[in-house]
């Protein structure tokens, strides 16, 4: 107690210059706050398991190379995927419930292109050689991803590619207006620089596969579906295979198409869309003919929308049943065709969640057309590629299959994936790499557990970073929901729209349709990200703590439990649900 005296009045007050630190208020606590990083919905939705919340956080902190390297932890193709991926992540983005999802694919593309233009060499973990050699069949996204991840894990990788250039579907199936060749070349270069050998013009046969078993410690088969499915109708031989057409365009092989002619594209997948959009650029007038409806199409809808904007037409609920050659335009001397189309109707039963369609009686219509393209799917080119060695023990994982036949053989990409996408192909290569590494380290029985152990949240995506026991491994698998975001901290802001060519300009050339975001636009867009579930050092926990218990250390933030009373303010204030309250064991 202190007495303050002066002429007016005496004051008797408790005053101490002893530190109040003697009062360890932490003993009052019955709940304890903790930093509990969780899983972002985008990261769990990404087949490649990219740590998107962290990537956008690093961009917002202007740590551009670090953000890029964070993608490379999980995916060797940021510039490619920023362009061609169907960005499932954006559909899952919590920000979409506030205004619009973060433009994640634009940011990925920005990071990929930025690194390419600055000739960046990534600093990513690569283990020393383990003396094991893997033969990889096919240099599409699955094969190259397998090579990339296996090489990082210390395997010697040799990739066998039938075509003169690597890339598979990326090179031959995706037109340049979506993916320019130099972007693909730069990203494949980076994989080769890891020591991966790519044997070009080296098709693999079933017999070669047998010799691989003697020469290599393991094999990865990621050759995709090399053979297009043909129409089984009368006159089918008059049609042009869509994938072959796209290949010819990329290989700059001449096509005998008349400008101002018309074309029917049979199919509803991404290949059908790419064929139609390519035709538009060759001044051909295409109609996509699909036996189901638009909402049933396996093609990604934004791609279809762009096609429609460019002038492609769509006819739904029509299946070709007959093709007949008719007299064409006399000037061109080329034949024309009459396609008989069976009208279809939606049945009440469903298959795999998709509406089933059945013929609508005998109703037909006829289409008079100059060219017919088919894009109705593909299948493995050789029987040995199709789940080959079933007499051996096999393990079916979410994205790949592992067979224990003399040497372990892994299959990935379209051969095993339910969703035929580039991101899923990459996921299969990564999963196979983890499976093979575990097999050689801990044996067959350990594989499934190891793969499950590095899942991103509860979903199928696996993370190499988690496999390598990095910090991401410690995250809570709980996926942060919109309701768990403290939205008071965020203001509505429009999603960044990348500059793009007008539909009219797109029809004139094979130039890329969209541009990459500027750095300023990318930084602004990254700041829209909630960074769901991860600490971005915003420090609101520290600012709100009434007991000054949040300690900032090099390793991150920590709670001083000597004084924390467990009021939970920090947890309530955390804008992004990166904290949790836990009951004390009393």
């Amino acid at each position, binding site marked *: *107690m*202190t007495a*303050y005296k*002066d002429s*007016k*009045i*005496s*004051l*008797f*007050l*408790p*005053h*101490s*210059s*002893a*530190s*109040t630190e003697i*009062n360890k208020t932490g003993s009052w606590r019955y709940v304890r706050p903790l930093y509990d990083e969780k899983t972002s919905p985008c990261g769990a939705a990404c087949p490649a398991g990219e740590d998107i919340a962290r990537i956008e956080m690093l961009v917002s902190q202007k740590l551009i190379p670090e953000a890029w390297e964070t993608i490379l932890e999980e995916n060797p193709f940021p510039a490619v995927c920023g362009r061609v991926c169907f960005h499932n992540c954006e559909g899952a983005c919590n920000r979409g419930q506030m205004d619009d999802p973060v433009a994640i694919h634009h940011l990925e593309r920005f990071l990929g292109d930025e690194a390419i233009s600055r000739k960046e060499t990534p600093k990513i973990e690569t283990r020393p050689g383990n003396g094991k050699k893997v033969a990889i069949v096919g240099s599409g996204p699955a094969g190259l991803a397998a090579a990339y991840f296996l090489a990082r894990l210390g395997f010697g990788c040799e990739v066998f590619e039938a075509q003169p250039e690597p890339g598979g579907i990326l090179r031959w199936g995706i037109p340049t207006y979506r993916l320019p060749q130099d972007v693909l070349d730069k990203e494949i270069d980076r994989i080769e620089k890891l020591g991966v050998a790519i044997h070009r013009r080296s098709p693999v046969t079933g017999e070669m596969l047998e010799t691989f078993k003697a020469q290599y410690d393991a094999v990865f088969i990621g050759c995709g579906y090399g053979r297009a499915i043909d129409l089984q109708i009368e006159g089918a031989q008059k049609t042009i295979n869509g994938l072959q057409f796209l290949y010819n365009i990329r290989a700059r092989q001449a096509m005998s198409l008349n400008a101002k002619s018309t074309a029917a594209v049979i199919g509803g997948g991404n290949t059908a869309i790419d064929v139609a959009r390519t035709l538009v650029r060759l001044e051909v007038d295409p109609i996509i003919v699909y036996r189901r409806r638009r909402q049933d199409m396996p093609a990604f809808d934004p791609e279809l929308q762009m096609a429609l904007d460019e002038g492609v037409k769509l006819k739904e609920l029509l299946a070709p049943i007959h093709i007949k050659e008719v007299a064409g335009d006399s000037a061109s001397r080329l034949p024309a065709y009459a396609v008989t189309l069976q009208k279809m109707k939606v049945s009440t039963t469903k298959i795999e969640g998709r509406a089933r369609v059945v013929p609508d009686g005998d109703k037909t219509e006829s289409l008079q057309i100059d060219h017919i393209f088919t894009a109705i799917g593909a299948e493995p080119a050789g029987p040995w590629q199709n789940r080959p060695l079933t007499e051996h023990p096999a393990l079916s994982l979410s994205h790949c299959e592992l067979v224990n036949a003399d040497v372990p053989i892994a299959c990935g990409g379209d051969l095993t994936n339910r969703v035929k996408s580039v991101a899923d192909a990459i996921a299969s290569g990564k999963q196979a790499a983890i499976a093979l590494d575990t097999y050689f380290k801990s044996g067959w029985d350990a594989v499934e557990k190891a793969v499950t152990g590095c899942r991103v949240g509860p979903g199928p995506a696996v993370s190499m970073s988690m496999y390598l026991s990095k910090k991401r491994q410690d995250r809570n698998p709980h996926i942060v929901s919109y309701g768990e975001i403290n939205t008071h901290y965020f203001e509505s802001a429009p999603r960044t729209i990348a500059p793009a060519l007008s539909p009219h300009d797109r029809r004139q050339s094979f130039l890329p349709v969209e541009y990459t975001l500027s750095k300023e636009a990318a930084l602004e867009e990254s700041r829209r990200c909630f960074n769901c579930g991860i600490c971005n050092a915003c420090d609101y926990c520290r600012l709100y703590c009434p007991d000054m218990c949040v300690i900032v250390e090099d390793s991150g933030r920590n709670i001083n439990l000597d004084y924390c009373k467990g009021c939970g303010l920090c947890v309530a204030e955390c804008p992004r649900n990166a904290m949790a309250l836990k009951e004390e064991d009393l």
Partner: protein
Amino acid sequence: MRQVAEGSQAVSEAVRLAKVQVIAAYPITPQTHIVEALSDFCAKGTLNARFICVESEHSAMAAIIGAASGGVRTFTATSSHGLAYMHELLHWASGARLPLVIAEVNRALGPGWNIWLDQTDSLSQRDTGWIQMYCEDSQDVLDSTLMAYRLAESVNLPVMVVLDAFFLSHTYEPVDVPDQGPVDRFLPPFLPRFQLDPANPGAFNQFVAPHAYMEMRYNIQTAMEKVPENYARIAEEFEIIFGRQHTPAEAVQCGDAEIIFVTAGTTVSTCRQAVNRLRSKGEKAGLLKLKLFRPFPVDFVRQILSGKQKVAVVDRNCSFGASGIFAQELKAALYQAESPPQVYGYIAGLGGRDVTPETIEDIYWQTKKADRPRTENMWVGLDQETVESWQR
């Protein structure tokens, strides 16, 4: 300069002139005009104060307690439920001996939800260790606010300047708003006797064991007892500078009075008029205005009322189960007085109901007719039909 101003403006002008440094407030009718004007002054720069917007009255009081502990002059204003919400910290402020000044606009507590005049909100805070001053008109409000800072800082106790909802807070009347120069002479900058100082770390108001707590409380009581003396000195200086006289209580025509009204707030003005009317009819009526409620001006009250016949207290409040609070206080003060008068306690004008000169005259005649108080609390102006309706 004379202006036509609301009672609320009189408060904010006084706070501006007092060069308050930190204001924290949460809006509540009918107080809001006060802090609205102050936030405007802060925005315009006519008052160099930090205005803290808080999420509740509890936080408003906590914020100015913190600011005053740091050694600055502070202000907040509240009303009714807002004051009730501050209750815990009202005790803290006086215990911590912080010379806070707040404006409290008397408003009824709910339910029934009511925003009009009722004194129960402030009177039910009588044991919190705050000095309370009840104002009669807008000039009284302005002067009392300026004096409140002097008084608070002289005894290190907080002061509540109390004004009636709407009858004062929202009523325009002429007010003399002094210039800054004379105010600066009257009210020099706040010189804290203790304050938090980062250069010399220390803690105030931590644990106090039984061996010292009682002395600490006695210290508050002695400070309260010092108030009348300090008030008188401050009022004297005020009169020299501004020419207006203020006293803890005021006796109006009490010399030969046989019945003396005792009341506070704007009802005093109504009583002044009623007394004049009664005098013109030959009745010996008088009036005692209570300005200070805490500390209660016991000596003054005894001096004026000893030997008188009857006192009629007009309470615009009620302590349920007892009586009007001013009446209780008055009876307690007179119990040990020599030949105390009879005390008639009237409860009137709750929740904004009008108390007119006629109401007061009615009270006068009732008091005159009675030979002793019928009950401890006589309710004036009740609607008999309503009362009977629930008694049936």
